[in-house]
């Protein structure tokens, strides 16, 4: 059991990371990762929706015939996202003002449908919830990493406005890395996001290859990628 959860964790955060390995969910990724704070906000909102969605799908999986699973999942996801949006707007209004922009964008994240379809619809509830949590955290990791590099290169700051998202106690996160930085426009725009994503993917491949070489076993990265595409 524990080994299984360990594998789910490793898959979600690294081996089968939504962005780094599966390369899906790129639309929200590129849209919001201008800054690390935005990436974090989008990531956390996605975690919440993914856990809720995986849990729900896993609960009702026995009832759903494969022929109509996709429309049902779409209805469920759209419902959860809208509920989260309304509830946050009403009772967590300050947070909603910051994250509100991202929540409707979550619907466009095919990774959520992907996990519901590929994992949650075939696994018990606990595993599905864990998978949602870990895949979501892995997505958050990718978003924050990409947001942070773009923000440092594009504006010379790191976690700007983090206290608006997380509250005043997190203002220590806000850093000015390069003072009097004139800005590097390309990185703030979506093409910069694509470029940076390319570098990060290359970096991940490099690390994986090193790890594989150290453990002196044949590299599995190539297999993973072909398997998914």
């Amino acid at each position: 059991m524990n080994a299984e959860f360990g594998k789910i964790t490793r898959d979600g955060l690294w081996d089968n990371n939504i962005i780094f390995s599966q390369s899906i969910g790129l639309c929200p990724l590129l849209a919001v990762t201008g800054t690390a704070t935005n990436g974090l906000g989008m990531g956390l909102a996605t975690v919440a929706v993914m856990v809720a969605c995986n849990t729900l799908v896993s609960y009702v999986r026995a009832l759903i015939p494969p022929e109509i699973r996709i429309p049902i999942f779409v209805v469920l996801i759209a419902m959860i996202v809208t509920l989260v949006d309304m509830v946050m707007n009403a009772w967590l209004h300050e947070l909603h003002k910051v994250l509100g922009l991202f929540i409707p964008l979550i619907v466009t994240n095919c990774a959520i449908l992907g996990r519901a379809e590929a994992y949650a619809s075939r696994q018990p509830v606990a595993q599905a919830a864990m998978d949602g949590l870990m895949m979501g955290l892995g997505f958050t990791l990718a978003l924050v990493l990409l947001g942070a590099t773009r923000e440092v290169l594009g504006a010379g700051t790191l976690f700007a406005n983090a206290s608006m998202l997380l509250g005043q106690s997190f203002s220590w996160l806000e850093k000015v890395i390069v003072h009097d930085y004139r800005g590097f426009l390309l990185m703030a725009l979506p093409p910069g996001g694509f470029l940076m994503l390319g570098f990060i993917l290359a970096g991940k491949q490099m690390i994986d290859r090193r790890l594989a070489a150290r453990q002196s076993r044949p590299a599995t990265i190539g297999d993973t990628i072909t398997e998914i595409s």
Partner: protein
Amino acid sequence: MSRVDLEHLRGLAANRWQWLRRQFDDLEALRQRLDYQTYLLAAAGLVASLLLGFADLATQGSIERRQAEDLLATLTQVLPAGLYDNDLLQDTITIQDGAENGLGKTEVYLARKEGEVSAVAFKLSAAGGYSGPISLLVGLNRDGAVLGVRVLAHAETPGLGDKIERNKSDWILSFEGRSLENTTAERWRVKKDGGDFDQFAGATITPRAVVRGVQSGLGFFQRHRAELVSPPPKGAR
């Protein structure tokens, strides 16, 4: 209804329930059936709509209150506190002139001190932004000079055009005190075009659109000044 009827009904309901339970005994076979799939899809839609409907009912009031608070918070940024003693959200007048926002009409918030209109605030939409219109809230005193301008919503480039936001830079404050009298039409431009207002390094289109938007807002006020500063009494509206 007699006792017998009731028992009969209960028996009938129990029967149907048993029948329904039996259907689910062989889930594999049930899942293959077209009618089951149709009903399931309909049920999913129904449950989702019901849940959303209830959630909407539960959150609607709260959301409206929060939005009113937000609007009031923004209004107080463009209308200095000493200028009014009325409830800004309640005291509005609708002008049938929407040239500035494309809606066909403009809702104007009236700031009154002891019954006299001392200032007005209204939303307008500045066309010609880099990525679509920019929504502005403009506060003017009764002589048509700008008390404050704030950007309500925009889709400009982060890091470049977003310096029009108050929390990103002080640029938006450069409108304060401007009017059509003290700034001639040629000066209502960004410096690059020979006017008075700064542009941003790498972004001229955004400030240009905002300057033009504020100027057109002043024009709107000038056209309707009489109605706005001495509106007809409440009952006549």
